[in-house]
């Protein structure tokens, strides 16, 4: 009793240490770094991007320099790490410069997918009703048409080329972003703070732009990262069939196609571009999966 009164009157009792406040972003980061595969693929992707940007500093020869005609089809050696291709070009330079094409198309197609899918998804989720119905029917349309066959057709009509491929990839990539954003916006639409904003007289544009899109950052990032490998796959597939990126621009898909013809005697022509493509696409999709699990642990393993 005396102790209690003492403490009440005189000495201030220290409150127990409050647990440090940590942002959701911190936990996301923790979950992400706990996923070793995702971290590793993030690093691999970063290295590949740096390689693509600084390609001229990595390889001495340009991708189209034919200075090795005597060494045509030579196997890998200390001088030519990945050997020499059928036209006497250093294969390592071509692979490195091929990363520019592959990653460039992947990233820009993902940007365009976001540009189409984000506003459509946000508007469909928030406005609902007829707009939502029409958008979902368009999404359904794109899920019924086999993307590769349609892309093949479109690529022939447009005669290939870098930008045509970027646009085609975006045309079939936006729907995933749209669905992800729509689901998130729809679940936020009836939250109190949105109602409050509406009661204060905020316009739908204001609500979508200032409240809903900032709250949809995680599906947006996930959609963006997952769109990259899809676009790279499409580019490689079209180039493999000879209607994508046109030679002499180096593209891994195209190199695999050429390498197939030499495969029986010169294995390096097929193995290196195949490995480069597989590693890059694998890294991009593992990174996307890791980010998705980190942002929303309830989705893990789907």
């Amino acid at each position: 009793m005396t102790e209690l009164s003492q403490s009440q009157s005189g000495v201030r009792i220290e409150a127990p240490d409050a647990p440090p406040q940590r942002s959701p972003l911190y936990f996301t980061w923790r979950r992400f770094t706990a996923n070793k595969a995702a971290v590793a693929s993030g690093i691999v992707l970063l290295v590949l991007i740096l390689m693509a940007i600084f390609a001229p500093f990595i390889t001495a020869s340009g991708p189209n320099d034919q200075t090795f005609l005597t060494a045509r089809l030579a196997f890998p050696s200390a001088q030519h790490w990945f050997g020499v291709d059928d036209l006497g070009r250093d294969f390592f330079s071509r692979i490195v410069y091929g990363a520019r094409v592959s990653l460039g198309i992947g990233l820009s197609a993902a940007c365009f997918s976001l540009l189409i899918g984000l506003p459509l998804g946000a508007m469909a989720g928030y406005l609902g009703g007829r707009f939502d119905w029409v958008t979902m029917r368009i999404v359904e349309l794109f899920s019924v048409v086999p993307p590769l066959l349609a892309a093949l057709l479109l690529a022939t009509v447009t005669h290939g080329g870098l930008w045509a491929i970027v646009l085609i990839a975006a045309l079939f990539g936006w729907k995933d972003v749209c669905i992800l954003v729509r689901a998130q916006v729809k679940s936020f639409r009836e939250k109190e703070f949105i109602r409050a904003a509406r009661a204060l007289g905020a316009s739908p544009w204001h609500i979508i732009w200032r409240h809903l899109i900032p709250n949809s950052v995680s599906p947006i990032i996930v959609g963006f990262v997952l769109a990259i490998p899809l676009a790279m796959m499409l580019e490689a597939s079209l180039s493999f069939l000879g209607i994508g990126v046109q030679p002499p621009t180096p593209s891994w898909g195209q190199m695999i196609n050429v390498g197939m013809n030499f495969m029986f005697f010169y294995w390096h022509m097929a193995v290196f571009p195949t490995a480069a493509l597989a590693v890059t696409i694998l890294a991009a999709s593992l990174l996307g999966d890791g980010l998705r699990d980190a942002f929303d642990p309830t989705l893990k393993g789907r």
Partner: protein
Amino acid sequence: MLNFIARRTASMLVTFIVVSIVIFLMMHSIPGGPFDGLEMPLPDDIKSKLMAQLGLDKPLWEQYLRYMWGVTHFDFGVPYQSPGETVMGLILHAWVPSLILGGSGLLIGAPLGILLGMTAALRRNSWLDYVASAVSTLGLTVPVFVISTLLILVFAVWLKWTPASGWGEPKRWILPIMAYAAVPLATYARYARSSVLDALNKPFVTVLRAKGLSERRILFQHVLRNAAIPMVTIFLPMFVGIATGSIFVEAMFRVPGLGAYFVSSIDKRDYPLEMALMLLISAMFCISYLVSDILYALLNPRIRLDGDVE
């Protein structure tokens, strides 16, 4: 239920009609007409007479209706690349290799994938689980033509066990079937793992354990039946995707299937064949999605029939 089926059917029908219009317009937007590339230019009056004979002078909507009328009778016209037969006949005989290879790939890949995914879910974080994750990630991310290249390199070039390509004796089917099996194997491994895990974590499993049921009965009578629903519903779309032939597998292994004909129809600007293939494959996708939606609703009575199935 009937109401739900009717509404889904109507919605799919509308989707299909819109797809057919888009494909039709796309074909018509390709520059050049049937009499432009001839070595001797036709006089204008003959050309216009020919166009009238073929119905090409009619307005676009009438041409579309005429075409679709033919489609309802499975009349897709005559392919430019082999005028001796009809498009339908060509598709039917080209489908055989795709159906054999793709079908067996699916029938081998899907059960293996289910087995792998199931054991991975039951032995979580064991080496088998990691193998299953690796297989499903690799199979879903690495393009099919890369897998095919590796298969040819390993089994045909280095080990010399099988021929590299071709169509004919069953020995040549092994590699393409393996390539076809990769995607269903990976997809099913992933789906089976996640849906079995999902079902295992449900409260009803705890109740069953508390009741004293054996693990085996819990697994086979309760968990698997719940986990099977998503796996049943993805089967049909996957079957359509695989059994209509992969352009890449058929290009890599030189198989004269539907995919190969699709590529050649684009190369040779064979519009009737190209259009028929696009329409047929889209129609089959429409039907498979419709059927799996209905199956899903039938198998899972908890689903709300008034809302959209997502």
